[in-house]
């Protein structure tokens, strides 16, 4: 089958897509995703149809369509190639891979071929840092790309192969699990006792039936389990708040919007432990009295959609989801899958809820907190994939078993996603409390000059502090460990991460929307050697304003790449500054400023072209 060229969307079919979701405005993201998949864009006319069907205004639909990176208001190619633009991919050969794609397809990044067959674009971290450079080709993921591989891929596509045929010539015969592991390696380097070792099926859920909701929450609280997404809120308390809020309905949401650059642990859990995840959610549902669940899967992990859908179907068929779970009267709980569409901010729990409601992924005003008023104003527990998996194991093995592992205040094990300059990138399940040095030894990353713990919103540390420990009290992390050798340019890394935050800010509040742009520009100045000594103070000052005034966690942490490198690598900044000569700004370049006029007037400058007119 040859890739279909872009068509003018048939509005009848757009309407049918709406019907498939009962034209429910809360399913807007699903509707627009399907329209995008079908027609490769969301036209003005489509917006009108969707607005009519869902009884929303056009601007409300357009607000959603224009918010998510995977939705487009311009026609995209039938095959859309999204190259992961993360710094790890860049260091792993992305420039050469990009060039190969550009040459083979005859289009540049950001362009769509004239026949509508291909689009080529960059996208931030798609969670494949352990096998970079990686790309999404429609819903297919390809990893460890090289220019040679790219030439093969393009030849195959031009020869009429579907993107899925690139994975296997008998793709259609494979199970969803087989498809997933053929596309993406798990790279499990160290299996710990809790998650990646042996996990007996639904053992926790069985035990949960014999416990009262109170006892479940007590047990989770006693285990010391804290949220594994990065913020580290005590999970038991979260559950208790939701359980105690009077309500007719309550909701359990799994945050599988693993977007922090350098993090890919949930990808592995979703592939290898999907039943454990749903088991954990089901236990949470019993604990807080919830009947509805949502797994919010980041759009980049769309390749896992079928796998998860199958797991849900299977569990429903086996009475592990739906009404009277395991035969217990009154224990009703079901889960739906919600796909994201390219927005890092949706990892923030309020934004994630907005997104589940079919809105742009904007964080919600707090208070009220989701545990009292979340999804559709219902009490809602939002936990990370890993957290739910832990919960299921805790109920099976007991709070004490979990509590004993790790360190005081940081109990149990943690999955670390290790990538960058090391021999063994991949997943390490280890008890909390390990030092960075120890982890580097395990991963074969002893040459590290810098380690980014917790992704760009975390901390970048230097060699002299590799004794620091991975705990909530020392180096807290949602799991990302990115290793950089001494060959890497720290300022390049910092500038990349700032451009990431600029791209991912939702734009709701001033400091994050605007301030991050200025931070990025300032770092660029340092890289170009155009910064003044005063610019160091400017970076600190602007960062602190952004942190102190931002509305959500994104803005409160976005200056971290700058602040932690200013603290731990001060010399790279001070080496790049010089006082301006005669107090004339080095950033103003008269030659480029008059280039256009020179060209238009077909003459040179009497003043600034030194050899001229003398």
């Amino acid at each position, binding site marked *: 089958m040859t890739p279909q060229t872009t068509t003018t969307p048939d509005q009848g079919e757009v309407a049918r897509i709406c019907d498939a979701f009962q034209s429910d405005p809360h399913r807007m993201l699903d509707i627009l995703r399907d329209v995008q998949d079908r027609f490769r864009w969301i036209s003005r006319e489509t917006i009108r149809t969707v607005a009519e069907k869902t009884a929303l205004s056009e601007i409300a639909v357009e607000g959603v369509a224009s918010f998510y990176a995977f939705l487009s208001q311009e026609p995209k190619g039938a095959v859309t190639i999204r190259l992961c633009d993360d710094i790890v991919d860049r260091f792993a050969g992305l420039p050469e891979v990009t060039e190969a794609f550009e040459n083979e397809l005859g289009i540049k990044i950001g362009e769509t071929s004239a026949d509508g067959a291909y689009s080529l674009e960059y996208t931030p971290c798609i969670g494949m840092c352990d096998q970079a450079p990686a790309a999404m080709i429609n819903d297919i993921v390809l990893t460890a790309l090289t220019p040679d591989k790219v030439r093969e891929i393009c030849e195959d596509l031009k020869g009429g192969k579907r993107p899925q045929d690139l994975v296997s010539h008998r793709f259609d015969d494979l199970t969803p699990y087989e498809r997933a592991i053929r596309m993406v390696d798990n790279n499990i380097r160290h299996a710990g006792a809790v998650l990646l070792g042996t996990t007996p099926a639904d053992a926790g859920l069985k035990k949960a039936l014999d416990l009262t909701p109170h006892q479940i929450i007590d047990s989770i609280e006693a285990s010391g389990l804290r949220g594994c997404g990065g913020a580290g809120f005590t999970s038991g308390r979260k559950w208790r708040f939701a359980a105690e809020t009077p309500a007719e309905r309550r909701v359990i949401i799994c945050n599988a919007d693993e977007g922090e650059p350098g993090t890919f642990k949930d990808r592995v859990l979703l592939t290898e432990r999907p039943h454990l995840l749903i088991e954990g959610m089901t236990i949470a549902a019993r604990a807080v009295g919830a009947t509805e669940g949502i797994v919010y899967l980041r759009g980049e992990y769309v390749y896992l959609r079928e796998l998860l859908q199958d797991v849900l179907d299977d569990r429903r068929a086996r009475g592990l989801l739906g009404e009277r779970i395991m035969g217990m009267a009154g224990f009703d709980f079901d889960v739906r899958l919600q796909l994201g569409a390219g927005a890092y901010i949706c990892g923030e729990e309020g934004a994630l809820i907005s997104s589940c409601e079919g809105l742009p992924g904007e964080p919600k005003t707090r208070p009220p907190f989701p545990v009292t008023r979340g999804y559709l104003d219902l009490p809602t527990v939002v936990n990370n994939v890993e957290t739910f998996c832990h919960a299921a194991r805790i109920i099976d093995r007991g709070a004490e078993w979990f509590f004993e592992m790790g360190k005081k205040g940081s109990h149990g094990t943690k999955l670390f996603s290790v990538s960058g300059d090391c021999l063994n990138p991949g997943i390490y399940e280890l008890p909390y409390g390990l030092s960075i040095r120890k982890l580097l030894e395990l991963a074969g990353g002893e040459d590290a000059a810098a380690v980014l713990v917790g992704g760009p919103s975390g901390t970048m540390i230097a060699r002299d502090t590799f004794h620091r420990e991975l705990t909530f009290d020392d180096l807290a992390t949602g799991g990302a460990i990115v290793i950089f050798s001494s060959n890497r340019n720290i300022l390049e890394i910092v500038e990349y991460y700032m451009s990431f935050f600029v791209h991912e800010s939702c734009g709701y509040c001033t400091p994050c929307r605007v301030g991050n742009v200025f931070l990025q520009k300032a770092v660029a100045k340092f890289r170009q050697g155009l910064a003044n000594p005063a610019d160091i103070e400017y970076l600190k000052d602007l960062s602190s304003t952004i942190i102190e005034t931002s509305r959500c966690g994104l803005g409160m942490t976005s200056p971290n790449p700058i602040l932690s490198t200013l603290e731990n690598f001060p010399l790279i900044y001070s080496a790049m500054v010089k006082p*301006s000569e*005669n*107090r*004339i*700004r080095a*950033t*103003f370049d*008269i030659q*480029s*400023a*008059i*280039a*256009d*006029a*020179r060209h*238009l*007037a*077909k*003459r040179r*400058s*009497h*003043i*600034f072209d030194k050899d001229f007119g003398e």
Partner: protein
Amino acid sequence: MTELPKARIATASLAGCFGCHMAMLDIDERLIELMTLVEFDRSPLTDIKTFTRRCDIGIIEGGCCNEENVHVLQDFRKNCDVLIGIGQCAIMGGLPAMRNAIMHSDEPLRECLEEAFINGRYIRNTTHNIPNDPALPLLLDEVYACAEVVEMDYNIPGCAPTGDVIFETLSKLLAGKFRGFERETIRFD
């Protein structure tokens, strides 16, 4: 009482309307008072075209829209201890900077000039040419605020600032007593 040496002031109007210079004259009879403290060097008010010597204060009206503006501003920065921007054009580009936001094509400068000299609704230009005398300074790609080109020490806002604000600010600066503007006197229009 020993007389202090007079402060030397230079002024220039770059891409402005000369309104801020006119506003300086609105200091009215207090000019006499001011003149006991200062003397003017290079300035359109004295018609001195180049610096006769280093100045204490340079006052800049207007932003930079062409190469000559840049040249003059850089010259002022080199020859003045303290540089003061006066009026919105110097501070943020002002009216001339309107062109920065109305250019949508790949060749914004051409678009701008063609609109101004050829295509504009009220243009009667029988030659259909964009003026291009060799004596005309080259235009910049966009209009720049002074602080984008050189470091500025102070800015007096307004379009134009009132004579009162100019007088107050200069007097306080000369006396080393400037601590910021009175809120009630700040205006950007």
